[in-house]
């Protein structure tokens, strides 16, 4: 008998290897006969390629090969696919321009892939890359999505001469217009949700080996979903049979969305490994990460909220222009649509909502999901509107939220989602207590006496995790399934290996999933190991994104566990000569109800593999089960954040003095790990609000923020220590009652911080401020108002 493990702060199984330098990341893999690849990238944002001369590079010592887009085209290598088809308001499918792994005829952003040089060493490949001569004819470039839609803007793709990928809408426009017509007050904001560069600390990497012996490939790649990588690469790009390709995503040093996608480099090294019959490895330098990892966010939005005289929400109207970058990345199209507009109800009973999104190609890196993916953008719209509305109507910002909270569940929103459960008042109350909102006025006065400006801001976010079910997602354009797979392999002596399609790259699944399994089986956690990230070991997997792993991957594991216990009962019934219906399983022991007869889990497992006394006529030997789980609905984590800032008006510097976050993730398996996820999410959200902003030069299209000097991800002294707590309304439609926690912090934090800053500056007449609210921009806002 063991203590319950669900809810326990178990230290992580994966830590020892990471703490001792024994982790194995993609760049650590060195294969016999290893060669190295360096990509020649476009220095232009938009240019025609007039010629590429390889001769000098090919003559350089140690250079083995140079490949260009022409070589790939001749070999009939396809373009990188997009996994979600959006149908526009005009009934037409979105524009899907070709996305060749190496440019053909034209480059469309700085960092676009032009050629690859493979060498005996990384130095030889680098030297070779310097010698590839590319003759470009520069073209005018456009980096801003609203400018790209204007007449006369440079066109990136022949099939989209106006640069529009689609215009898409959700909601009842006429009903919303009617609601606005009868509103007592309308709050209107226009803002940019700033473009972010993910910057996992492990740069992307890929190392491919081809074996002539059996015509097979192995690709080691820093990736969040190896089966999806394999499916996309084999079926859509290289035309290879899947059983000949093994994809391994070993230890992966952070992803945050940026390692979901099938990237050009992965395809090119895999293809090149066959041409050379040698392993080919590419590892990004940080400067390559900046220019070529898929970026996040980049919305320009006009948002309006209609209210009655008491601040009750009557309707919301949102128009967004989303910058997709130069090409459609793997899931780019669904982020500013399906994962954005559907979240605009937030935690509120807004009866009618209309959202229209125009997605646009520009001469910038492709944009795709980054931690939160559409949901931070939606939360920012809702929570900035709500807070601003409260200030305009002179209502307490907590009170206006309470007046509009959803209180009965299940709740059908006007933007397609059906929330199963929640308790928004509980998290708001807890966050306000924790943040000592009652004492804020006194602290604000005290700060004012020191010449400082204090502000308090809220964000009450909702998230939708574990996008599902597959058939509905398919009807909305998804070109993939959205289930997860799990396998429980019980060994003859009763220890267990769990195989999961959910990949871990920092989330601690090796511990959390082991807790679930050990708890359900009543085994010591040391008896359970978790394996993930290798298509040759895992039966299938849709991977890790969108805070789905515990809700979808965890449930697949639970379903497999149920089958293990069901079969174990049959075996135990035979061993104890009892009726199967009389067998109960209780924390590691099969018992005959109402008797003292019992068999330990290990005894039953042993009997399954040494079936001497076993019902072989009715039951197969062995104890190994798998399950696929396709959820019936999203899960809906929600929470309330209270942020308190102090601004120095002389320098514009904002200090977060207090950040209180209360989340409802449903059942929590490992509070220590969940808190860690929230800390990380909050810090990325604070980064978006205060320090991070991707900038391209508007004329040349050069990435101005291309290093850690120019693009400031938060450092330790940029962020506070956090106060966290949770409230629990278990998810109603999965057996663990879990919802997911990976993205919450990044979803709620930007609005909380900006609401706090604008609260501090409201009395000076600063109604809104763009993210990131750097010291310079805050200083300018204060002093422009003072000068006026």
């Amino acid at each position, binding site marked *: 008998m063991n203590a319950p493990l669900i809810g326990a702060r178990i*230290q*992580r199984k*994966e*830590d*020892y*290897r*990471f*703490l*001792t*330098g*024994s*982790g*194995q*990341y993609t*760049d*650590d893999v*060195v294969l016999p006969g290893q060669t190295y690849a360096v990509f020649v990238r476009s220095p232009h944002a938009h240019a025609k390629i007039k010629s590429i001369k390889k001769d000098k590079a090919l003559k350089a010592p140690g250079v083995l090969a140079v490949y260009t887009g022409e070589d790939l085209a001749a070999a009939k290598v396809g373009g990188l696919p997009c996994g979600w088809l959006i149908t526009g308001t005009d009934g037409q499918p979105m524009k899907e321009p070709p996305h060749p792994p190496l440019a053909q005829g034209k480059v469309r952003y700085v960092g676009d892939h032009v050629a690859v040089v493979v060498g005996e060493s990384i*130095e030889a490949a680098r030297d070779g890359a310097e010698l590839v001569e590319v003759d470009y004819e520069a073209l005018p470039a456009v980096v801003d999505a609203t400018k790209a839609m204007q007449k006369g803007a440079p066109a990136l793709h022949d099939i989209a001469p106006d640069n529009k990928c689609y215009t898409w809408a959700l909601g009842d426009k006429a009903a919303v217009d009617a609601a606005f017509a009868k509103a007592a007050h309308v709050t209107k904001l226009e803002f940019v949700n700033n473009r972010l560069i993910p*910057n*996992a*600390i*492990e*740069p992307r990497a890929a190392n491919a080996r081809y074996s002539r012996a059996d015509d097979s490939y192995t690709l080691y790649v820093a990736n969040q979903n190896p089966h999806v990588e394999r499916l996309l690469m084999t079926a859509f790009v290289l035309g290879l049979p899947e059983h000949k390709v093994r994809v391994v995503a070993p*230890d*992966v*040093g*952070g992803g*945050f969305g940026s390692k979901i996608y099938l990237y050009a480099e992965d395809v090119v090294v895999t293809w090149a490994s066959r041409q050379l019959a040698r392993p080919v490895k590419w*590892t990004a*330098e*940080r*400067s390559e990460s900046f220019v070529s990892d898929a970026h996040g966010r980049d919305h320009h939005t006009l948002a309006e909220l209609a209210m009655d005289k008491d601040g009750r929400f009557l309707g919301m109207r949102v128009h967004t222009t989303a910058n997709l970058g130069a090409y459609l990345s793997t899931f780019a199209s669904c982020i500013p649509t399906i994962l954005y507009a559907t979240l605009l109800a937030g935690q509120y009973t807004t009866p009618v909502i209309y959202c229209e999104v125009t997605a646009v190609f520009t001469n910038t890196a492709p944009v795709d999901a980054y931690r939160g993916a559409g949901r931070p953008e939606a939360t920012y719209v809702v929570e900035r509107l709500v807070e601003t509305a409260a200030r305009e109507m002179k209502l307490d910002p907590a009170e206006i939220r309470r007046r509009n909270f959803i209180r009965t569940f299940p709740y059908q929103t006007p933007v397609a989602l059906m929330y199963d459960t929640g308790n928004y008042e509980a998290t708001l109350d807890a966050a306000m207590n924790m943040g000592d909102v009652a004492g804020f006025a006194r602290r604000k006065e005290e700060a004012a006496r020191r010449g400082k400006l204090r502000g308090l801001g809220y964000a009450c976010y909702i998230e939708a995790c574990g996008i599902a079910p597959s058939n509905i997602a398919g009807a909305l354009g998804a070109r993939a399934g959205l289930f997860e797979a799990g396998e429980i392999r019980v060994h003859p002596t009763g220890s267990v290996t769990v195989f999961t399609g959910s990949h871990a*790259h*920092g*989330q*601690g699944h090796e511990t959390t999933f082991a807790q679930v399994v050990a708890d359900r089986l009543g085994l010591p956690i040391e008896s359970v190991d978790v394996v993930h990230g290798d298509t040759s070991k895992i039966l299938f997997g849709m991977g890790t994104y969108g805070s789905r792993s515990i809700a979808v991957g965890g449930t697949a594991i639970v379903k497999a566990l149920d089958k293990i216990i069901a079969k174990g009962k049959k075996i135990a019934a035979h061993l104890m000569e009892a009726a199967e219906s009389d067998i109960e399983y209780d924390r590691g022991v099969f018992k005959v109800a109402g008797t003292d007869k019992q068999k330990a889990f290990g005894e039953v497992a042993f009997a399954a593999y040494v079936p001497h006394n076993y019902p072989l006529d009715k039951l197969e030997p062995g104890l190994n089960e798998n399950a696929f789980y396709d959820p019936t609905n999203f899960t809906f984590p929600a929470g309330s954040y209270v942020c308190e800032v102090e601004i120095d008006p002389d320098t514009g510097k904002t200090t977060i003095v207090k950040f209180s976050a209360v989340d409802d993730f449903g059942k929590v398996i490992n509070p*220590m*790990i969940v*808190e*860690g996820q929230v*800390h*990380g*999410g*909050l*810090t*990325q959200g604070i980064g978006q609000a205060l320090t991070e902003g991707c900038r391209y030069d508007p004329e040349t299209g050069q990435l101005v923020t291309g*290093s*850690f*000097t120019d693009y400031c*991800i*938060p*450092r*330790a*002294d940029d*962020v506070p*220590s*956090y106060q966290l707590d949770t409230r629990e309304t278990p998810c109603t439609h999965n057996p663990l009652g879990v919802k997911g926690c990976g993205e919450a*912090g990044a979803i709620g934090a930007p609005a909380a911080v900006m609401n706090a800053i604008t609260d501090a500056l409201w009395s000076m007449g600063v109604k809104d401020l763009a993210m990131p609210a750097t010291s310079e921009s805050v200083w300018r806002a204060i002093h422009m108002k003072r000068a006026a």
Partner: protein
Amino acid sequence: MAVRVSMTVNGKAVSAEVEPRTLLVTFIREHLGLTGTHVGCDTAQCGACTIHMNGKAIKACSMVAMQAQDANVVTIEGVAKPDGTLHPMQAAFKEHHGLQCGFCTPGMVMNAIDFAKSHPNPSEQEVREALEGNLCRCTGYHNIVKAITAGAKAMAG
């Protein structure tokens, strides 16, 4: 043209012929196969490559191997006891969940050990300032700060 470099790494004398431009971190990873030292930025900003050279934490991506001639180098692989017992700072990172993906972790631990030698009882602010040169994208630093504070006390005994 190759040059010979010799140094002590994790208590063992090592020597190899390398190109003069070979970075110390490349020497450690590629020539010695000690892949616990990571490269996160190539520009001395992220600190994932932090090692100890002659007892001080340095960034191995911003010097060439030749500059470490005759030096005493310790990498993350040389920190735990030979029997595998974690160093008190490593143990504190585990206990306080001061790591997630593990990529920045070796550099964090190496910097923290050096810092703790001179700060046996650091304040939160001192720890945060000491981490200026180490980037983490996963943890939000909250638990790293707790781990280093506890680890420093444990090291001081």
